[in-house]
């Protein structure tokens, strides 16, 4: 076959161009530290990366959700703990009040402290979390669940139905913590402040129990005070049960947090394995490619020197 000059030059130019393009690509990979620069570098890996990065963002969201659940549960736990302390104090006061040697004035003094505890219990029930949501109101968010004006007792001293002085409802928000897995955020007010029966077996509330105790002290009614001691005891047990329930929810949230954190690590490792450049291989490749380019250039220089014209004098 005849080898013509344009063949030699065209071929050399094409080859040098190709080598230079490969070199430039390796160089770009090294300078960006990325193994995959565009979808066509590895279509399936790019799709896998896109999914993994999306999983990371979702997991980050789940972590945020869990932390917000933990915040809300933590605040409910705090409130329940305060209730526990307050009710224990109430019990102490009532035991003092049941002492037969005490006179009416002394019982009135005890009643004053109990009233303060009652009021602080109302504000406890009306607490909001950081984003302004009532903690113990269920779905009802346009008004506070409890009010100082609404008495849990009727005029004749009998107990009202809880709903008559509770503006919230019996709903609990659920928040997604994993694909298809949702956790309840604490409990509505009717479950913490009510939801138990007194010693007579009738449904009652913390507020009614307190109000009755206050009434007993004010009326100097030792029998009522003694009865209230037991009811406060029942309320304490109820609050402690609820505390345990909140605690176990917190545990679940904590476990889920751990699961997501270890998943996150594994996602990030996989992403790094796919996307990040193996520098040792890349640098070796770069050396090989520049060697090939140099060889191409020097062989071209030699071939282009070969011409019969050099020898015709």
């Amino acid at each position, binding site marked *: 076959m005849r080898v013509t000059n344009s063949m030699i030059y065209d071929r050399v130019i094409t080859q040098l161009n190709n080598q230079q393009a490969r070199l430039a690509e390796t160089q770009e990979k090294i300078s960006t530290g990325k193994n995959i620069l565009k979808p066509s570098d590895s279509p399936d890996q790019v799709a896998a990366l*896109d999914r993994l990065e999306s999983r990371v963002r979702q997991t980050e969201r789940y972590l945020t959700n869990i932390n917000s659940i933990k915040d809300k549960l933590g605040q409910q736990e705090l409130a329940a703990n305060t209730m526990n302390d307050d009710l224990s104090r109430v019990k102490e006061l009532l035991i003092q009040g049941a002492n037969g040697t005490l006179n009416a004035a002394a019982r009135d003094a005890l009643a004053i402290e109990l009233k303060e505890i009652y009021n602080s219990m109302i504000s406890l029930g009306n607490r909001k979390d950081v984003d302004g949501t009532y903690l113990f109101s269920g779905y009802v968010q346009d008004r506070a669940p409890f009010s100082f004006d609404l008495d849990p007792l009727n005029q004749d001293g009998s107990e009202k139905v809880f709903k008559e002085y509770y503006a919230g409802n019996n709903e609990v928000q659920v928040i997604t913590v994993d694909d298809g897995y949702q956790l309840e955020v604490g409990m509505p007010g009717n479950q913490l402040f009510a939801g138990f029966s007194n010693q007579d077996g009738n449904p009652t509330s913390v507020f009614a129990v307190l109000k009755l105790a206050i009434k007993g002290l004010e009326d100097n009614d030792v029998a009522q005070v003694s009865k209230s001691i037991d009811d406060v005891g029942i309320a304490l047990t109820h609050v402690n049960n609820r505390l345990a329930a909140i605690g176990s929810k917190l545990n679940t949230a904590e476990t889920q947090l751990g699961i997501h954190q270890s998943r996150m690590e594994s996602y990030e490792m996989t992403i790094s394995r796919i996307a990040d450049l193996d520098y040792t291989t890349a640098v070796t490749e770069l050396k090989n490619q520049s060697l090939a380019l140099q060889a191409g250039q020097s062989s071209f220089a030699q071939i282009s020197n070969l011409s019969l014209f050099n020898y015709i004098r």
Partner: protein
Amino acid sequence: MSDLLSIGTSGIIAYKRSLSTVGNNIANVDTVGYSRQIHSTEQDIGSTSALINLGNGVLSESVRRSYDAFATSAYRNSNSLLEQQETLYAYANKLENIMGDANLSLTSVFDKFFASAQALVASPASGSARQGFLTEAKNVAERFKLISQQFDQLDVDSAEEIGSRVDSLNSLTKQLSIINYSLMAKSDVNNQPGGLLDQRDQLLQEISTLIKIESVEKANGVVDVYIGNKGTGLQLLKDVTPVAVKASISKQNSEKVELTLDPYGEAKPLGNGYGGKLAGIQDFRGNTLANMRSRLDDIANAFMDSVNGVQLSGLDAQGNSGKALFGVAEDVTRVAGHMQVLLTGVDDIATASPLIIDQNSETASLKLDSWDTSTLALNGSIDTNITIAFTAGDEYEVRDSEGDVIETVVYQPGDKISGDGWAASVVNTPSEGDVFVIKTNNAPKGDNRNILAMAALQTDREVFNGLGSFGEIYADVLNELGSIVVQSSISRDAQKVLTDEAQTTKDAASGVSLDEEAANLLRFQQAYQANAQIIQTSNRLFEAILNAR
């Protein structure tokens, strides 16, 4: 009469021509489209009637192009396909640069949208969470618009390129018709000037980069040109008459550019089936780009439908039934570029379920599984009050708001309980006396059940019939595009090898080798010198006779 002087002279003349030809070859070593020329000689056989036949020297026969018609047309055809692949690859690459750009990713904007829905789940009553959700919804619409605009730009650019390529095609055909006119002066292609034929072939070569052609050469070197091959009957050039090609936007489909041959005469559609740059652009527009646009539209439609579906089934913060979040104008064909957020107020987001259940049971509870506000709100507003009262562990009564029993139903564990626009299931075991009242939700502000359903769309594979979630489907689209680029790069490389091969074959016949020319230079120089020696000898012989005494 054969004499030494005229023989020598004929040699001098012939080899001077050979040397000129070699010189011309060397001078044109780098001229595009130049074919090596060969000066061929034949012997002058002289008088045949003489008893002793002495030759008369040498005659120039012709200067011909070294040319292989088959190799030239094979190269042309191969190059047409290569240009098609190159063009397709170049455009696919542009598309890849758009879609591969992390700043234009749909997945990340979907993720942010659903994250804002999750934030709203955590705080349905929070105004800032509601605002955040609307903002992210706008960002989704913006992202779709941004990608669509890039697609539109590619559409416009490629349509313009078709226009300018068609212009040069018409101009090249015209130039070729002028060459044909010049060629008509002679009747034998062998007598045609090599340069003119080279020009003709170069024009055919340039036309073939735009569109695949077959040329039919006549005895005098005039060519007729057909698009595709002769069998199509799509004649681009007939003797000296060029036929125009026109590019125009299709009346049926504004995204389609139609090519027509002889638009003002016997108009014939060209379709996309021929090689060259034009076919490459048409291929990209008709397949790759149109396909990617449809995929984007599919995602946009599925996204709007499912998000709107959830919105419509819920209650907004004011207790009104939800309205569509996204929308497009009626007459739009490509929805992705025209997505709009329709809701304006933060309270319009339907975070709540329309129903709520009052329950008295210590053991069991009734949980709403699904609801549909549009069914519940048939007569304008939602006014539901249905009581499910268990009269035994395995039987319940359905009562209306007046307390009248509508029906009595036998209950088995696991049975669903449903009414118009809602369905619920019993958790744990119900017992006698358990009463559940399903009624209108009067506290929608703190209810997150509907926005929970919205957030759950993120991983819902049913929106694409089980094929994947929004993010997964988009990743599939990226995968597909990457594969298209890889494939077109492979086809291009393969075609490049074939074309190089064809070019080598063509060059082997027509190209100039300087070494060969150098050798010929010496050869003809020596022949020239030897012929000069013959003249010298003839002179000496003549002198010998003159000096004879």
